[in-house]
């Protein structure tokens, strides 16, 4: 019997219980039936309803999912639970009935967290995308952002680079703000202001993405960039232990082609003789390079990185207490030597039901993440370490004859930077991030209709960076510590009542306040007399100190009314008032209203077997942005290291200087968004289509209006300008194949958005802040009215001056073979918009195929409609900036008098020019995982799964660099990232990874 049941149980995983019960024979008798209700993973479901069909007789399962009910053999038990398909179970002659509830394929009754409460997905009036653990659990993940990428329409996830632990740029429905941070608000278990990068992906139950203003208005002043609400797991049923371990091997997908030593030497000779110089390499030397080769610094810099990820969780419930405890350890090696990432995290989620009215919960999360040698902090002059390696002299070996590093190119060729291999090997920068989050929630049912919930959260985040590096001839030490503490107290009152079975009314009121305090302390200790290490900073010849303090707070009142009429018309209205310390009294409080409605047309679809669900949604709302630096309304007289001076050339005196100008009139940036949507259910919920269209206008931008350098330079932040985003989000998901052995679930999402700057307060454009890396002191980006954010600014490349144009070229001091650019009448190169880095289209296509015990996950992602200014290629071509030789393979086909190609043999190499603007469109196979699950092979082991997966296995693109997705600026660098999107000055390549893992459930 047990064997039979187990078999049935297993089938039930795929079919549901209806099929399973067909094997029971019907016998009629009165009896007490005991049983357990479990989910597909075999975990008991507490609180499930078990009702004898056609009667009012029923019971509710306990914390382990057990129930006991009296029924006759002819009765049918109806077992139901929110989010699962209700099962009808004929009692028959059984005294013990175990029921496995399948999750509702239609997913129409999924619970969605909407902020300060939950709603059934079918009741939603706003645009919300949900990413549940189910959709990403088949992909080995170390980062939560990777779970979001390609799985939610309207959400774009772009890696800054492939560095372990690097920031990831997440954007919801485009970018609104030119100078502000466009990152969405992250709310973890109700606490505002979380950080996805620190979370353990295995702790996440679901992520709900609030996209339109009617949904995000609930978060008022912090909702304008969209909201990601993360819910962590809770324990349920009998204790279970889950272990997950995987190993990842990561490498550079493809090396960029660069000249070998012999070609390099030949072209270098040609470059010199062309301008009457003398050859620098003899024929003999070149011959030797032909035979022996040189040093490829790109290959020397990279390595195969091996990573390990271990995860353990214990969860369950005992009596009135449920618990979820987890631990996670990640140890990642970078694909650049001497870079890496390590993270430990621990979580404890514990909930207790004190009595029928009172519930309390405690969520605790502690983590330490350490980044070794974050390359973005190692940029000194003119591009990243990656660029330096790419552009380093292939004719200079790493070491000299004595075994010491060749610090510079022995003949000052190619990159003039210090040896990148020495640099990375002698550098030890540890970024240590400690984080402790604790939050408590207390829920008290005052009456049957009225609930009061108190949510209190505190977090402490310590970011320490310890730097020890060789700065010839001596070593330098640097330390900085940023300590942030946050608190949030939310008082939530919810009242809900159904009148006349038709009018379902729910009112939510919130009073909330939150605050942040930041303390920053740092010191630098230069030139240690003996290189003994970081903890010998006392040996320094010179030291400097720096510190800072800031605090901010927000006080809020919010009200929400949800009204459902007759289960087919839904209205939600919210109103939030936020007062922020960032603004002065009088400009401080912002009011954010929203209203949205949904109308279900299901009743029109009677008996239609294709269209089985249809509803329309519309919403309007306003949200704000107050995400600016503390004290922005005040002018400053700063005391900074830049204003120090040493009158005697040795002793430093502190100095002060005027800093920011301050603008006391600053107030909220407001985003007004209108959204219309349609939800279509197909084939009885087997497939769902959701379409949303939106227009959002951000006005009174918190814009940094440049002050002319003549007047002291810098900027004054003002509420000026308007940016518009328009777009559509499409999600189509469903089960393509659903039969006994084979299930294919598929989900496709696509978002298309256009971005336009409508107004900049009277001026047509504003110079950006992305400084060129070619030593030419240019700015490569601009913000222009009538154009999307992220305009590239540069010269127009016209190929080469031909022999027939020699006279014309000579007037400009140039000769045939030199680069030719569009110029004005005076012969000066003209600059203009040459491309844009803001994508219009992104899509994801996620497939999970299950065949018997096998499962396969395939995730494709694509982004289109943007360009990349590939400055790295410009640097490789060289002859400019810090790289004065030719290193790009295209130079093998450079202009000669007999073959007048358009690849210049000399002249100015304008990196900020059309020559290096490329289309960035790409399609990526983000994940491919194959797993096999063994059931019941070992006593006491619930399941054992082994899997192998690969990420970033292929990339289809015309782009010539490593990866077009990269933004070079750190993605957490507010403002700049979006207005300078698509400029590549040497991002860490996105690795190709292969993972092998095992999951065990006990």
């Amino acid at each position, binding site marked *: 019997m047990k064997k039979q049941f187990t078999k049935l149980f297993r089938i039930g995983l795929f079919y549901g219980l209806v099929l399973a019960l067909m094997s029971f024979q019907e016998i009629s008798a009165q009896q007490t039936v005991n049983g357990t209700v479990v989910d597909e993973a075999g975990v008991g479901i507490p609180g499930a309803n078990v009702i004898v069909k056609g009667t009012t007789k029923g019971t509710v399962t306990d914390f382990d999912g057990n129930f006991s009910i009296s029924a006759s053999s002819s009765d049918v038990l109806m077992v139901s639970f929110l989010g699962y398909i209700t099962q009808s179970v004929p009692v028959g002659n059984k005294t013990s009935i175990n029921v496995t509830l399948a999750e509702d394929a239609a997913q129409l009754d999924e619970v969605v967290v909407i902020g300060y409460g939950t709603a059934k997905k079918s009741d939603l009036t706003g645009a919300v995308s949900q990413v549940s653990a189910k959709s990403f659990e088949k992909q080995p993940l170390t980062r939560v952002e990777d779970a979001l990428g390609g799985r939610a329409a309207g959400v774009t996830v772009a890696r800054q680079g492939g560095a372990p632990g690097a920031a990831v740029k997440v954007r919801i429905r485009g970018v609104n703000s030119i100078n502000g941070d466009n990152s969405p608000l992250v709310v973890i278990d109700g606490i505002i202001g979380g950080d996805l990068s620190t979370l353990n992906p295995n702790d996440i139950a679901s992520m709900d993405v609030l996209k339109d203003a009617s949904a995000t208005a609930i978060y008022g002043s912090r909702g304008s960039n969209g909201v990601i609400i993360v819910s962590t797991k809770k324990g349920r049923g009998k204790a279970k232990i889950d272990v997950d371990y995987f190993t990842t091997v990561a490498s550079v997908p493809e090396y960029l082609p660069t000249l070998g030593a012999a070609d390099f030497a030949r072209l270098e000779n040609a*470059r*010199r003789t062309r301008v009457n110089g003398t050859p620098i390499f003899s024929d003999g030397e070149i011959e030797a390079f032909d035979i022996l080769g040189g040093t490829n610094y790109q290959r020397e810099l990279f390595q195969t990185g091996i990573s390990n990820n271990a995860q353990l969780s214990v969860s369950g419930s005992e009596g009135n207490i449920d618990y979820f405890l987890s631990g996670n350890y990640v140890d990642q090696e970078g694909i650049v030597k001497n870079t890496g990432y390590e993270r430990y995290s621990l979580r404890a989620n514990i909930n207790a039901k004190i009595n029928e009215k009172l519930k309390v919960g405690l969520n605790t999360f502690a983590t330490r993440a350490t980044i070794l040698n974050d390359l973005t902090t190692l940029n000194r002059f003119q591009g990243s370490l990656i660029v330096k390696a790419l552009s380093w002299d292939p004719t200079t070996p790493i070491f000299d004859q004595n075994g010491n590093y060749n610090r*510079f190119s022995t*003949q*000052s*060729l190619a990159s003039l930077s210090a040896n990148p291999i020495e640099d990375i090997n002698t550098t030890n920068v540890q970024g240590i991030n400690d984080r402790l989050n604790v939050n408590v929630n207390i829920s008290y049912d*005052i*009456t049957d209709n*009225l609930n009061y919930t108190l949510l209190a959260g505190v977090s402490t985040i310590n970011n320490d960076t310890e730097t020890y590096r060789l700065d*010839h001839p001596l070593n330098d030490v640097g330390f900085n510590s940023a300590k942030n503490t946050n608190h949030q*107290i939310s*008082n939530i*009152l919810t009242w809900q009542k159904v009148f006349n079975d038709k009018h379902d009314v729910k009112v939510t009121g919130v*009073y909330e*306040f939150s605050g942040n305090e930041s303390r920053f302390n740092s010191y*630098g200790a*230069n030139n240690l007399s003996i290189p003994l290490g970081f903890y010998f900073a006392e040996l320094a010849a*010179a030291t400097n100190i720096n510190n*800072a303090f*800031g*605090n901010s707070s927000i006080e809020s009142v919010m009200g929400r009314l949800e009204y459902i009429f007759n289960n087919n018309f839904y209205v939600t209205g919210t109103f939030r008032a936020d*007062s922020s*310390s960032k603004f002065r009294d009088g400009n401080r409080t912002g009011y954010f209203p929203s209203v949205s409605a949904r109308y279900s047309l299901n009743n029109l679809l009677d008996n239609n077997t294709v269209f089985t669900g249809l509803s329309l949604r519309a919403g309007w709302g306003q949200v704000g942005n107050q995400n600016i630096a503390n*004290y922005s309304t*005040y*002018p400053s*007289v700063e*005391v900074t290291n*830049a*204003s*120090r*001076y*040493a*009158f*005697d*050339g*040795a002793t*430093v005196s502190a*100095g*002060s*200087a*005027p800093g920011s*100008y301050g603008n006391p009139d600053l107030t909220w940036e407001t985003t007004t968004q209108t959204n219309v949507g349609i939800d279509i259910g197909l084939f009885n919920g087997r497939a769902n289509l959701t379409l949303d269209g939106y227009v959002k206008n951000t006005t009174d931008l918190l814009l940094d209006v440049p*002050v*002319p*350098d*003549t*007047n*002291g*330079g810098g900027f004054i932040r003002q509420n000026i300008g308007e940016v518009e985003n328009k777009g559509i989000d499409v999600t189509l998901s469903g089960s393509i194949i659903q039969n006994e052995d084979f299930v294919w679930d598929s989900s496709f999402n696509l978002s298309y958005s256009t971005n336009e700057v409508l107004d900049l307060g009277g001026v047509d454009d504003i110079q950006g802040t992305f400084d060129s890396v070619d030593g*030419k*002191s240019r700015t490569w980006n601009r913000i222009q009215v009538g154009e999307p954010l992220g305009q590239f600014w540069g010269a127009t490349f016209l190929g080469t001056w031909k022999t027939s144009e020699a006279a014309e070229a000579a007037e*400009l001091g140039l000769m045939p073979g030199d680069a030719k650019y569009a110029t004005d009448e*005076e012969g*000066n*190169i003209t600059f203009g918009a040459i491309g844009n880095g803001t994508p219009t289209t992104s899509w994801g296509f996620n497939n999970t195929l299950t065949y018997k015990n096998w499962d396969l996950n395939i995730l494709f992602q694509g982004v289109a409609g943007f360009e990349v200014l590939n400055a790295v290629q410009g640097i490789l071509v060289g*002859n*400019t*900036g810090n790289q004065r030789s030719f290193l790009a393979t295209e130079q093998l086909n450079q202009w000669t008098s007999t073959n007048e190609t358009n690849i210049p043999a*000399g002249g100015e190499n304008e990196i900020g020019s059309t020559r290096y603007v490329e289309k960035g469109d790409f399609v990526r196979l983000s994940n491919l995982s194959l797993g096999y699950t063994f059931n019941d092979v070992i006593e006491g082991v619930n399941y054992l799964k082994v899997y192998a997966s690969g990420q970033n296995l292929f990339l289809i693109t015309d782009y010539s660099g490593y990866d077009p997705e990269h933004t070079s600026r750190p993605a957490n660098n507010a403002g700049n990232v979006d207005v300078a999107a698509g400029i590549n000055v040497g991002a860490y390549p996105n690795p190709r990874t292969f993972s092998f893992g095992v999951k065990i459930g006990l």
Partner: protein
Amino acid sequence: MNKKEILKWLKPTSILIAFAMVFTGCADLEEDPTIDYSLAPGTYSQIAELELGVTGIYGRLRNASQWSTFFVHGWAGDDITTHKVSNKADFREFDQRQVSATNGRIANNWRDIYAMVRAANAVLEGIEGVQFTDADKQDRLIGEIYFLRGAMFFHLTRMHGRIPLPLTSVPDFEIGLATQEEVYQQIESDLLQAEILLPEIYPGVLDGAPRPNSGSARAFLARLYLDWAGFPAKDNSKYALAASSAKQVIDNAATHGFGLVEDLEDLWLLNNRFNDESIWTIAYNADNNLFNRKYGKLGNPSDLGGWQETFAEIRFFEDFPEGPRKEATYRTEHDWENFTDQQTPVFKKIAGPAGDIPLTDFNTDRNDFIMRYAEVLLIYAEASGRSGNVTPAAWEALNKIRRRAEGLPFNTPNPSVDVTSGDIAELAFTERKWEFAGEWLRWNDLVRMERVQDALSNRNPQSSFNSQGQLLPVQNAILGSLGTDNYFAPVPANEVLLNPNLGN
């Protein structure tokens, strides 16, 4: 509502009130920028604030002067050139007399200098109407502010001619270009004010006036008047003022702590970076990241691992009179004619004397001698001549420089090198050419005397051959006009874009 209902509602309400009492008012919405963000704005209440403000102006100054950018117009002179094909295009534009408004170096220099001017104006506002008990200290600090502001307007007008003159820290977004006359008047006014307020010698400082004294201000006035008398203002009456100002400094040199270094070779040594020949020194300290990035590696060719920014012109080198001064000016021991990349001589003044600055170093401790006492002597000689008031002292001033150039004791008359007749103005003018070669000063002389055409038409090497016997070509041939309409660099393009008034 019956009693039961009232009780039912009372309970939650009382809980709510309790919570409200506990948590209301916990949010403090007033910012206090004085905790960290800012010193108290407005008028100073203690002299330490004034000191901080003045030091901050120096900090801004060093920020501007640490790069070769600070002297980018100096590449226009016939003494200095740069690499012919590397990323030195902004310097080449000056070298080749074709400076565009988008030249990044002029933009950076403009930005850094006006940031310093803003700082100076803010400090002047902070001290307005305030009198601290230590009046001497207050005076000399304020004197420094005027000196620094005047010196920077002066520095910038030499590059651009007409410039805007912001005199408050409150931005005037409509500000236009002052006339050349107004610019000179403002500089004169600032320097005169500085001279009144500064002491004869600044207490507690090293040699070389790292903090200027009244003599430094007067020396700068001498320099100003010499320019003022020449192109473009051509106010001839200023020659007499130049001469008398220089003479005043010479007469009080000992009081101000000014003199000549005995041996020119010592002048550029790192360990002699504070010396009494400097009328005003900008000080640097590499250990504390307050670097000077104009010397060392930047003056060397790639054969020596250099970054080849600041090279010597061949023709100028050929013409340079042989002797100790040439040896002190150039690294003559190099076989520069056969350098592999670019064949130009190396300035000892830039790369440093042999063994002084490591070849790999560009973050140096070297100080800038913004004006040397030698210049005061030569201003006196030249201006005396041009104002028609030649005195024996004027000849002596010129001869001191000539003697030292030959390695002779400069105070001991020596008929073999001394001159006492002829056109002293032109002799001094030529003496300046050699004495200040590679110090980014030559271009200013060519401008004020309208000698650009003369000097830059003769750059082709005459006698420098490589080992194959080929005559070396000139590097970076002239592309633009050598006429007076092309003497000054345009206002940076972005400034005109933001404020069109700067375009006129």
